[in-house]
């Protein structure tokens, strides 16, 4: 809402020395938030004066243009009283016209300094201004010609053009619809400065009678009040007075024609949306009803609209002629030939307005006010004000008929304990202050013997319905700056939850492993699934789709964090990184496909069973962790070669996380997109799969612009965390000497290290302290299709030094079991 300060001051007797900044600050403190203060003349320094064109000689130029060499009477403004010689390129004026002249020494918007300068063979001492040059509009068709009575040559043009006018733009919250009018803003200003308020709606209006245009309300819930007045003999060519056009412009609307400008002006003044009809195009009585489903209406924006049974329509005998309170129809629109005007000022049900606006995607200044709630007592006053302006500036005559149908809805009586404001705000607000402040915002307050208050809010405050609404009114007048600052003493909490602590630990472990965390948008589409090489029936392609995605390319909530990470990795490499290790933890979603979530009432708590239905309807939303390793994992340097990331780094990270959480991660070979089919591991905790890790498929690297052999991990953190050890048992270890034995076992290629390891462990028995693979050999000595695995075994007993016999017996048992299970043959 843009409010010119002079307009505010028309309705409230503010002290003259209140600056615009101070006014804006006080109103902000009351809840009308300052957005900006506009001062159109701030970018101009004078002299800027009224001039009368005395002579103009057209002089054609070589470049094809014709300029006018003018002499202009600027009074004494130039210090000499002599006519000012000015070259002007525009042609839309003639001698005798009043214009706006800017003289040498002045500065126009854009820091444009004016000086006398030689041009087209003359010394041009200043400029005749257009609205654009003055920063007043975009009209560059010609210079600004003032009305004949605008002033005398030499008069200062700042006030004349409203250039000293300051406009405050407020952000109005949805509950303060009354402040979408000068009436409302001025009322708040009166409250802020305790200054007298003059209600622009307070006027004598003629009593309703039977000779007015016939209006029938068939849906009083949708349209409780409808006022209609008519003006005949209106001159459609009459111009909008400058002051009125300027105020409409300052308030952010565009002047169009006198009749439209007046309806807008009154809406800005009072907050009551007005609709004007060409009365001669109306057929029969006006009726307000709900539309029938499928009915058509062409609104005045030219759109043919199919109406819903919930839409409120204004009709005449021809059918719908307007979408009530939202937008008029094309057939009865006022035009440049309209001389007979019917004024509609009606009160509409806000919910219907909101739904109709949303359904037809219509936003308008009228709709904005109607859907937030307008003072229902206004229609008769607003219509009368429009009639006054139409007859004053458009030469029309007010016809004697005065139509006023319906009753404003009754106002609530709100019971509120007089100490509630103090109890809610913590401010020392006594009963007298509460009553005074409620009365200040227009409530009628009664106090009963027990000190209970009953407040009836004023008609312009439909937002006040609950005791707590009244508390806010009392509190904002006392001032939010008076709220004391007291730290509450919380009940003792139990600290972070297990999962919250584990997530922090996982993040720190990954950062410690050299991985950098990223956050990507969780939206995905088929292109990414295709790039991952997922089969058509892959579960990851079964997504939660969005009805209104940001991009039709990515219409779903994601089921995998990998594409986002791959893109971030490629971006980093593209920006010159030689290697990246990135990770992300984030929610992914899988459809539950269990039907809609119920919508419950809000007057009581839904039962636990009902709440369970809400959760059941939600997608399954596990927390995933993904890692990508691309390019250099270790840098080359003076220490030697660098090392590229590979499949083992990816699996290593999973193992590292497992170690961090006390989980013995089982690794099995697997085949799954987007991984390399021979270099992909399934990872399990206590036999439960929680994800995959390994080298990416070459096609995936190519599709995402990643270097060959990039590796990745994606795991379900919820599953992993479920298996985390909560209390680590204190380890026991022996301090007796260790006995070391190395064995080399030849197995066929298909046998995994894990299998051999498992057999060795079991075979070696309790004396085995640790076992570690330290070499893998393939080559002639072991034969084709075979490999030699070299393990270092360490034996130790808790209570004694092992004898050589004990150690070799354990080793032999280990080798024997490996041989039995995997066909391993010991190399000697």
């Amino acid at each position, binding site marked *: 809402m843009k409010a010119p300060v002079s307009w505010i001051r028309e309705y409230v007797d503010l002290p003259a020395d209140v600056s615009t900044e101070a006014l804006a600050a006080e109103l902000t403190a009351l*809840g009308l938030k300052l957005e900006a203060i506009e001062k159109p003349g701030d970018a101009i320094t004078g002299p800027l004066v009224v001039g009368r064109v005395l002579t103009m000689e057209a002089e054609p130029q070589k470049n094809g243009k014709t300029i006018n060499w003018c002499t202009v009477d600027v009074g004494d403004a130039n210090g000499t009283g002599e006519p000012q010689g000015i070259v002007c390129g525009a042609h839309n004026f003639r001698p005798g016209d009043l214009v706006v002249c800017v003289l040498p020494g002045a500065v126009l918007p854009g820091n444009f300094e004016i000086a006398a300068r030689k041009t087209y063979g003359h010394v041009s001492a200043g400029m005749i201004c257009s609205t654009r040059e003055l920063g007043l509009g975009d009209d560059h068709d010609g210079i600004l010609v003032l009305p004949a009575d605008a002033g005398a040559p030499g008069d200062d043009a700042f006030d004349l053009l409203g250039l000293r006018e300051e406009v405050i733009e407020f952000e109005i919250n949805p509950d303060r619809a009354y402040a979408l009018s000068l009436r409302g803003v001025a009322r708040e200003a009166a409250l802020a400065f305790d200054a007298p308020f003059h209600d622009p709606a307070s006027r004598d209006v003629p009593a309703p009678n039977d000779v007015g245009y016939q209006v029938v309300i068939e849906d009083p819930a949708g349209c409780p009040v409808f006022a209609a007045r008519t003006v005949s003999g209106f001159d459609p060519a009459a111009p909008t007075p400058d002051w009125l056009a300027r105020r409409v412009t300052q308030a952010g609307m565009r002047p169009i024609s006198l009749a439209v400008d007046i309806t807008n002006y009154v809406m800005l003044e009072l907050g009551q949306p007005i609709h004007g009809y060409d009365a001669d195009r109306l057929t029969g009585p006006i009726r307000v009803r709900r539309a029938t489903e499928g009915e058509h209406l062409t609104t005045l924006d030219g759109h043919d609209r199919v109406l819903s049974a919930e839409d409120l329509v204004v009709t005449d005998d021809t059918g719908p002629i307007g979408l009530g309170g939202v937008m008029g129809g094309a057939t009865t629109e006022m035009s440049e030939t309209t001389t007979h005007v019917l004024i509609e000022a009606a009160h509409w049900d806000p919910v219907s307005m909101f739904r109709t606006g949303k359904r037809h995607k219509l936003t308008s200044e009228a709709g904005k006010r109607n859907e937030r709630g307008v003072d229902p007592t206004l229609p008769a006053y607003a219509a009368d004000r429009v009639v006054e302006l139409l007859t004053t500036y458009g030469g029309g005559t007010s016809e004697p008929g005065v139509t006023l149908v319906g009753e404003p809805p009754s106002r609530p009586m709100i019971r509120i304990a007089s100490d509630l404001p103090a*109890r809610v705000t913590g401010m020392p607000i006594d009963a007298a202050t509460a009553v005074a402040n409620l009365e200040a915002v227009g409530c009628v307050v009664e106090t009963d013997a027990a000190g209970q208050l009953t407040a009836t809010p004023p008609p312009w405050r439909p937002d006040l319905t609950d005791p*707590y609404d009244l508390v806010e009114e009392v509190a904002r007048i006392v001032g939010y700056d008076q709220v004391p600052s007291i730290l509450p003493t919380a009940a003792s909490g139990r600290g972070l939850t297990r999962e919250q602590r584990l997530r922090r630990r996982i993040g720190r472990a990954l950062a410690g492993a050299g991985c950098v965390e990223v*956050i990507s948008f969780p939206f995905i589409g088929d292109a990414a699934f295709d790039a991952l090489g997922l089969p058509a029936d892959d579960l990851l392609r079964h997504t939660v789709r969005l009805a209104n995605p940001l991009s039709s390319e990515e219409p779903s909530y994601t089921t995998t964090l990998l594409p*986002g990470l791959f893109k971030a990795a490629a971006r980093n490499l593209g920006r010159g990184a030689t290697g990246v*290790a990135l990770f992300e933890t984030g929610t992914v979603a899988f459809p539950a496909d269990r039907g809609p979530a119920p919508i419950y009432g809000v007057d009581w708590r839904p039962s636990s069973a009902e709440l369970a239905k809400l959760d059941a309807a939600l997608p399954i939303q596990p927390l995933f962790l993904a890692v990508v390793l691309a390019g250099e994992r270790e840098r080359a340097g003076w220490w030697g070669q660098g090392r590229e990331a590979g499949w083992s780094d990816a699996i290593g990270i999973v193992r590292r996380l497992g170690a961090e959480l006390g989980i013995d991660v089982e690794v099995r070979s697997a085949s799954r997109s987007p991984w390399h089919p021979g270099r992909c591991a399934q990872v399990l905790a206590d036999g439960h799969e929680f994800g995959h890790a390994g080298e990416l498929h070459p096609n995936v690297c190519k599709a995402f612009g990643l270097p060959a052999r990039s590796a990745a991990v994606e795991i379900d953190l919820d599953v992993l965390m479920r298996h985390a050890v909560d209390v680590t048992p204190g380890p026991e270890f022996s301090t007796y000497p260790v006995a070391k034995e190395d064995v080399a076992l030849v197995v066929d290629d298909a046998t995994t290290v894990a299998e051999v390891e498992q057999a060795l462990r079991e075979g070696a028995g309790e004396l085995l302290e640790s076992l570690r693979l330290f070499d893998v050999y393939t080559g002639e000595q072991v034969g084709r299709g075979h490999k030699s695995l070299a393990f270092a075994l360490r034996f130790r007993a808790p209570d004694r030094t092992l004898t050589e016999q004990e150690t070799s017996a354990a080793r032999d048992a280990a080798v024997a079991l490996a041989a039995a299970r995997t066909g391993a043959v010991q190399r000697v």
Partner: protein
Amino acid sequence: MSGPNTDYDPVEVTPLKSEEVEAARDAALAAIAGATDLEALKAVRIDHTGDRSPLALANREIGALPPQARKEAGQRIGQARGAVNQALAARQALLEREHEERMLVEETVDVTLPTDRVPAGARHPITTGSEMIADIFVAMGWEVAEGPVIEAEWLNFDALNLGPDHPARTMQDTFWTDPTENHVVLRTHTSPVQARTMLTREPPIYVVCPGRVFRTDEYDATHSPVFHQVEGLVVDEGITMAHLKGTLDHFASSMFGEGITTRFRPSYFPFTEPSAEVDLTCFVCRGAGRTDDGSSCRTCRGEGWIEWGGCGVVNPRVLTACGVDSERYSGFAFGMGIDRTLMFRHGIDDLRAFFEGDIRFTTAFGSDIS
């Protein structure tokens, strides 16, 4: 260099003569003094104290002497051998020390060589920032509540006093899942977590809810369709706006330092009544509105305050919908953007820096925020 006394024939010596013993001792001492490295000293040790050395041989002769001569000879030889051993030990220690010092000099490296063999990792500032915020509240005895990001419409809107026709629903452009008749949305705020908390717990409730939220905003330097919020909720007996103010003042000074405080302005949120916007003392100019050189502060546009978030007293309608006895309990709630909070705490101009994944941005924050 002194070598072993090769022209010495021990057989011909009469080792027990005192001159001979002294000569052998002196020869040994001279050889020890002349050994310039540990290698040479080792040879000297063998020649002059080994089994075949003159003093060792003389020592062996002692037994053959008549008893009365034994004592004297034994004393003489013992003294000589003692002097030689002492000199050897001293020389050994000296040479070892010299050797060690030389080795250390030779092993000198250029310690300014780079050491970044494995690049450093980092956690995202939004993660660590959220944790920092959570910790401020956990330290006061609050708990951290969480909920699903894809949420039931009833919990995201209705339960929070945002009915189907509430104009505020148009203030937040919502991502709806398909079909919209399923009434499931990407949560537009973390407030449904507050509703869930009230629905599942008995007061007293002191929780803070950081999390990811979604709005269909254009993606630019100050807006993102995906961003992060932290909300707080207290429901207890006798809770007032003063407790809200106290909590936010404490939050502000914990997050931004002593002297940073908050200011309330009346506002509107369906969830709360009365409602307020929270402004924060500008962290850059510390409320002055001007920087040290006198120019207007860019961060707060000269106002000395920055818009931080919204707050208010929990609307009793919300308490009722969530099954809390609004006669007995009252509460307050607040919410602010984590991304935005971090932007002005760290002087980040463009919100998109958080979501681009450039490691140069993230690694600057390390594994915990400061």
